[in-house]
């Protein structure tokens, strides 16, 4: 048994060291990604193809790190567990192997969660843009460009009094000739930029929603752990206290269960209110889109 214990301890230490090395490598990768992303995005096409490829490659490498850990779990941890978990002839032997397996898996899970959080945060930082400035810039560019459009027939300046998001016919008010007006790239990007700006402005509501969503899960897990601890509990006083604690946690969890979808609805409404402010001529479409989204979410 002592020999096995030493083997398990050594394997666990190797796992710790392995995960530390992979974390360092992931950090180097993500730091490099963030620095490089700035240059790539600056020189990219309007569709962001170069950045998309760069992002996919980075995600691919992060995935390789996950696969490496998965492989270690499958080849170094689980075979040891399966080999020894049923050998329960010695007292405490089986529980030692189970606890070791659980500790290793918990470490792997924690490592994966941290990696996911680091990856998401790096991508979010790399992609962050002040959409207030971008939107205003597109709008100003459109208004400047539409002032330089003249009738192909008589040369008079065309009266363009609204925002067009795609190519349209404009009739010359002087000679009645029908002209084709292409509003240009900035106008075509206005709807997309407005949506991103509306989401950015509504972000605090989404963060609140995510807080309650996470809180619901955390409270559930706390109550679940208390439930598990009751399985072998004999002391009635402790049982009573734990059951009361479980009931309190459940009450708080129910508040979060109600609050999270309410906040999601609030977030959607906020995004579409912002969109209506930014592009008031599309209000009717926004409202239909809002109904479709809320129907789907429900």
């Amino acid at each position, binding site marked *: 048994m002592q020999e096995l214990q030493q083997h398990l301890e050594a394997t666990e230490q190797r796992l710790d060291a392995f995960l530390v090395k992979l974390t360092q490598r992931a950090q180097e990768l993500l730091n490099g990604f963030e620095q490089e992303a700035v240059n790539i995005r600056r020189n990219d096409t309007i569709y962001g193809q170069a950045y998309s490829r*760069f992002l996919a*490659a980075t995600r691919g*490498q992060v995935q390789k790190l996950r696969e*490496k850990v998965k492989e270690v779990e499958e080849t170094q941890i689980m075979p040891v567990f399966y080999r020894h978990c049923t050998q329960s002839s010695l007292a405490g032997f089986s529980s030692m192997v189970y606890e070791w397996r659980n500790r290793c898996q918990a470490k792997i899970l924690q490592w994966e969660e941290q990696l996911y959080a680091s990856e998401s945060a790096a991508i979010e930082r790399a992609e962050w843009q002040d959409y207030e400035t971008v939107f205003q810039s597109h709008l100003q560019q459109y208004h400047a460009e539409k002032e330089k459009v003249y009738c192909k027939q008589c040369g008079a300046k065309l009266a363009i009094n609204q925002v067009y998001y795609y190519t*349209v016919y404009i009739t010359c008010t002087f000679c009645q000739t029908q002209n084709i007006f292409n509003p240009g790239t900035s106008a075509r990007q206005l709807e997309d930029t407005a949506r991103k700006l509306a989401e950015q402005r509504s972000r605090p509501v989404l963060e609140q929603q995510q807080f309650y969503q996470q809180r619901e899960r955390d409270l559930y897990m706390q109550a679940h752990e208390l439930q598990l601890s009751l399985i072998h509990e004999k002391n009635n006083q402790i049982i009573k206290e734990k059951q009361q604690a479980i009931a309190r946690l459940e009450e708080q969890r129910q508040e979060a269960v109600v609050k999270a979808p309410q906040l999601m609805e609030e977030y959607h409404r906020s995004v579409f209110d912002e969109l209506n402010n930014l592009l008031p001529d599309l209000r009717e479409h926004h409202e*239909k889109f809002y109904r479709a989204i809320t129907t789907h979410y429900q």
Partner: protein
Amino acid sequence: MTNNPLLEPIHGISLYDYSAANARLANNVPVEDVCKALGIEQPVWEEVNDLWVKRMQEDGEFVVATQMGNYFAQADQHPKLGSLKAAAAAADQGNLQQLAADRYFYEELNGAREAAYEAGLDGAQWILENYGISLGDFQQVAMQWSQVMQQEGYETMNQYLQYRQEKKDEYAARFAEEQGGNVADDIEF
């Protein structure tokens, strides 16, 4: 479904017209040629395009998007757009036919494409360069296979997915070798 107002034509352009037009545009057919075949001018096309996208956004049941996918797969049979091809689109007909007939070949190229993107390559361009199949043609065949997949059982689907994953791993290893390895190849347990 036929009574759904979201499926009514827009300025005379039906969802089938719109879907087939998009299949052609995805295959690098110029928008001017698509408009000519449909008998409309570009401003009409752009408004139609904008309105069909808006209808999809307003459709909480995804009926329009689903039907568009079905029509996309039938673009070759469209009476006005079926025969329209890009001047430079000399697709490798042999590979394209194999893609449509051989599920294993289709899964392999899917795996290769995914592996290429994860290696930082343009997966669609890689398939075009190596197999002469454009993104538009590939997606059209993908829609045909998607209809087949809807009818097949879990085991069959799982078998093909496993095959795709195997191929993806093979191509990933190949791309990694070409690029000097993966980020943590030197870290051992």
